[in-house]
């Protein structure tokens, strides 16, 4: 059962899946509550364009992935503001633009490159020592920053307009959050892949959102779901020789299904809505009489 601990690649896969599970799911809380799910998907595709360019010109794929995703995030903001477009429109433009670039770069390679497809679909068992160190550093920095600015992000999530009016540096913090999302996506690419990384960011947070009204508890639950799914997914992948990214995402999707089906919060909300409608009706009939 535990023979895998003798294999270095399995230990690296385990540690990296835990780290990616925690950092993605914690970042995901801020993505979900700020309504940035679509922008995250755009970042993943931009990062993939960077990876493919890296393989094409023989430069570090991860470094170019970081550059592509950060530039895309900033351009999405800029085009949205200058062009007076809704954010989803400018994301849609860059989403397809960067995917087109990725396909173009793959086409220019003229030969099949298995590593590129590793980034597309994820390959936990292929995580190297250098990859692991990078994941560790990025996870530590991102989690520290989120802890330091937790109360400011809490205010922005609840009411960005009032937070800014109260003197909270909302512009800088929003840009910092987008940068953290970009970097988190990039370091997670190798483990879960472009297509699935965003499921690991959004789904644990969305599952936690079903269970609590507290942002702090949501962070804790999301991290718990993210790591649990990563561990179970990795085990299933090893045991049944299945793609690790897919087993992780399928596991977290099952967790989401359970949380939604048994959400006490949803039931409370339905009850509260019913009760407040009855109260309003009673009040109105009192006023009328």
């Amino acid at each position: 059962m535990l023979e895998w601990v003798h294999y270095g690649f399995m230990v690296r896969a385990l540690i990296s899946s835990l780290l990616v599970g925690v950092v993605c799911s914690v970042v995901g809380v801020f993505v979900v509550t700020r309504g940035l799910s679509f922008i995250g998907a755009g970042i993943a595709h931009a990062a993939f364009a960077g990876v493919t360019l890296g393989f094409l010109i023989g430069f570090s794929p991860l470094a170019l992935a970081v550059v592509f995703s950060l530039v895309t995030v900033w351009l999405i903001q800029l085009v949205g503001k200058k062009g007076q477009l809704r954010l989803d429109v400018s994301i849609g433009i860059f989403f397809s633009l960067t995917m087109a670039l990725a396909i173009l770069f793959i086409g220019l390679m003229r030969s099949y490159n298995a590593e590129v497809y590793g980034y597309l679909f994820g390959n936990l068992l292929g995580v190297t020592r250098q990859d692991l160190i990078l994941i560790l550093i990025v996870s530590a920095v991102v989690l520290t920053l989120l802890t330091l600015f937790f109360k400011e992000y809490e205010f922005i999530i609840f009411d960005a307009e009032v937070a800014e009016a109260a003197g909270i540096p909302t512009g800088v913090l929003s840009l910092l959050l987008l940068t953290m999302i970009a970097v988190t996506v990039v370091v997670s690419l190798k483990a879960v892949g472009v297509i699935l990384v965003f499921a690991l960011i959004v789904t644990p947070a969305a599952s936690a959102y079903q269970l609590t009204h507290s942002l702090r508890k949501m962070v804790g639950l999301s991290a718990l779901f993210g790591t649990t799914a990563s561990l179970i997914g990795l085990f299933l992948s090893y045991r049944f020789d299945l793609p690790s990214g897919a087993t992780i995402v399928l596991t977290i999707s099952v967790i989401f299904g359970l949380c939604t089906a048994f959400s006490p919060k949803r039931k409370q909300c339905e009850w509260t809505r019913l009760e407040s409608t009855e109260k309003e009706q009673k009040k109105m009939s009192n006023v009328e009489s």
Partner: protein
Amino acid sequence: MGNEERIIALDDVNAGYAEQIALENLSLEVHRGEFLGIIGPNGAGKTTIFKLILGLMEPMAGSVQVLGYSGKEVRKARPRLGYLPQREEIDPQSLGSVLDVVLMGRYSRIGLFRRVRARDREIAQRALAQVQMEKFASHPIGHLSGGQQQRVLVARTLAQEPELLLLDEPTTALDVATQQDLIHSIGGIHRALGLTVLFITHNVNTLIGLADRVLYVNRRLYAIGPPEEILTEPMLTEMYGHEVAILTRPDGRPCVIVGDSHA
């Protein structure tokens, strides 16, 4: 009426968005402790006045001075200004308890990299008590009624320990009884704490007996003065574009009726 210390001064201000001017040649002074009601039709530039005071918008021409800051420095006054914008009802699934939301009012005072302390919690609890919502501290904010949520948001501005309250149509979308309760609370807080209040409303009746002065704005400063001078039938008829009658209630207070008074 407040004392003579001037805490806001707008001097010949033009403001707006791109090609759309929202305010023209507006000059206004507000003194410490004053309660200024702001009325005017939709699109008259009422909220723009708040955005200028908060430094969320820069004037195209003229100058803005708030608590001694002017130009780009106006935003430095933000932590001392309590702002309640127009809003829609909070989603029942929204995150945060009532106390969490009120504590947010402390965050600009606490500053970056610092944690919430016991004193901040005490101030937040006191602010909740001032709007009679202390019993609801642990309730999820989304589970409260519209009127209760609005009280909590007023408490959040009070927790900021502001010198100036900017309230943008705080009674919109509330039923009549709840509007009266909230107005009563705001009036009580103004008197008890001596806070300067700028209060935008479409319900001019709320300003009677509450405001020291009323500003009637319609892109330009149309009129400013004590309620009895501004809330007159000709002035309000022009503002609403409908006939307005001012009746006297049994207790002697005036009451504004908008619509066809001959019906």
